[in-house]
């Protein structure tokens, strides 16, 4: 009976150092696989971000073009004409220059402006 028991114990004993090596190898293998997957996932993310950037850049270029065209002087003129707004440059007598330094009294300024020649515009 004693002999039988010893045999059984011998059969199930797994060498501890070998088990340790196997665990280390398995851990390394898992880590490698995990890192591989992670790299692939990051690669995919970078790629999709690159594509998104390209799409956004194209959109930006198109918007830039539309904005430039919208605020071009020719287009502004066209829009003003569509709304029947006629803009003219002020006459020299209509220009009031405000200079730095001593502030101009509001009353004086208003008197000056009221005395200046008027041109009927869009009336």
């Amino acid at each position, binding site marked *: 009976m004693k002999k039988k028991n010893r045999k059984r114990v011998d059969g199930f004993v797994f060498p501890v150092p070998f088990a340790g090596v196997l665990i280390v190898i398995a851990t390394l293998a898992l880590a490698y696989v995990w890192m591989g997957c992670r790299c692939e996932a990051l690669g995919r993310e*970078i790629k999709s971000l690159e594509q998104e950037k390209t799409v956004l850049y194209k959109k930006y270029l*198109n918007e*830039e*073009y539309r904005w430039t065209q919208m*605020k*071009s*002087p*020719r287009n502004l003129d066209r829009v003003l004409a569509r709304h029947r707004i006629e803009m003219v440059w002020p*006459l020299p007598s209509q220009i009031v220059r405000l200079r730095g330094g001593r502030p101009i009294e509001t009353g004086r300024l208003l008197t000056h402006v009221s005395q200046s020649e008027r041109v009927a515009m869009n009336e």
Partner: protein
Amino acid sequence: MSERGVKVRIGLTAVVLLLAVIGLGVRLAFLHILTGEDVRERIGKNRRVEATIEAPRGKIFDCNEEENILALNLVMKNVCADPSVIAAAGEDMDEMVSKLAPKLALESEDLRRKLSREGSQFVYLRRFMPAEEAEKIKAFGYKGVFLEETRMRYYPQGPFLCHVLGFVNHEGNGSAGIEQRMERYLKGSPGYLATGVDARRRELYLKREQFVKPVEGGNVTLTIDQNVQYMVEKAIDETMAEHSAKGAWIVVQRVKTGEILAMASRPGYDLNDFRHSSGDERLNRALGFVYEPGSTFKALTIAAAVNEGLVTSETVFDCEKGTWFFKGKPLRDYHPYDKLTVADGVKKSSNILTAKIAVSLGEERLYSYLRAFRIGRTMGIDLPGEEAGILHPASKWSGISITRIPIGQGVAVTALQMLGLYGTIANDGYMMRPHIIKRVDGPDGEVVYEGRPEVIGRPIKSSTASTMREMLARVTEEGGTGRRASVEGFSVAGKTGTAQKPVNGGYSSSEHIASFVGFLPAEDPEVVMIVAVDDPQPIHTGGRVAAPAFGKVASELVRYLHVEPVEQKIARR
């Protein structure tokens, strides 16, 4: 099952597995060792892509820097078709043509011919179409009609500033104007990508072997002001229409720095459709067209004589009642005058007075002043295509050249040279190099090129320039030839010119070049401008054709640039 049966089964399974492993091993060995080099190369090629990545070309801005873009890159679509697929799909050709032709801006018959081209599997229906419009075509859902992405250089305002900007050819190289001159800054350098791809040719990021990022081209900022340019282009178009002219050109320059604020030339062309423009339309007349300047040239001779101390504004000359014979050849004034002071001679634009002054100056001295004012030499503007004009050396002059060159005959100039002459008078005798490029910024924002004001000569003294300014200011006063160039509240100095065009060794009596060159405010000039009109009909004088255009642009310009009338400036001081 008996123990023996189990053993046999295990043995058989082991043998099968072993054979399978051996088979796979042999196949692997065959593929890896025995496969030919060419097959391996083919497989490798299919899994790998090497590509050059195009660098975006730099943008071009006006002087307001990043606010106003004059040239940019745009993602466009080519609308393509596969006629074989269209035929196989049995699409209703009539319906297809009627729907697509207006969207593609094509004639119905042309489109039908393209769509039903036999034996063809690819045809462009329309190239370089804005993405939004192209998507509308795709939305019809016709089989065999598809879009292809492409990039192109685009000029948002079409023909606006066409001669200055120039264009980029099909190979992506700048071929005219700023695009050509600043090619090395604008182009950038292409990138490179070597990478592995999957079966659908999509990049496998982890198989990326080499990636060199493309370096964007630099952004060019011009000295041109978009709003001033617009004023000028509007005025030039109105003048062309009003006088049924063959061509016209206007240049506006800052006196103290030489910066070009506007440069327009007609006829023009659409930069986005440069293929359909002629050489004549592409010519920038402001710097590439030489013409006899006529009376605007008189200022040079008079400035030279004043500078030499030979005359003052009050010196009186006998104008021979309209006809003066020199070496047996008559020289006439448009209106006959008896005696005129130099100042009045300038105001009335007397040919005889100018010729007499030139004779007193002498050929050699006159020639040296002509050279000093860069007649017969380029001004050195940073644009391609500048002409030097025509000026023969004094040794080759005929006997009467001394009386003809001072009145702008027998000499040919560009508008830029005339602008240089008047700019020098306006700038106390200092001649500034005209420049149109303000700055080039690299992709990282660093300044890689900067256009700076540069003095290229000083042909006359300050006092001479001042005297000339006073005399030229009288031209736009009542009784002067250029009174239509006057601007309310400002004193304008300038000179009209009406030159007959040379034809077959003589001068045409019906074809003229009318011009006006001037600056303002005359007392403390800020801007100098030239207006020239080629073959205006039926009125052809500089005073009636070019001076009004000058006055119109100048009156808007002073308000836009906040130029103050000199009295106000002095009062403030």
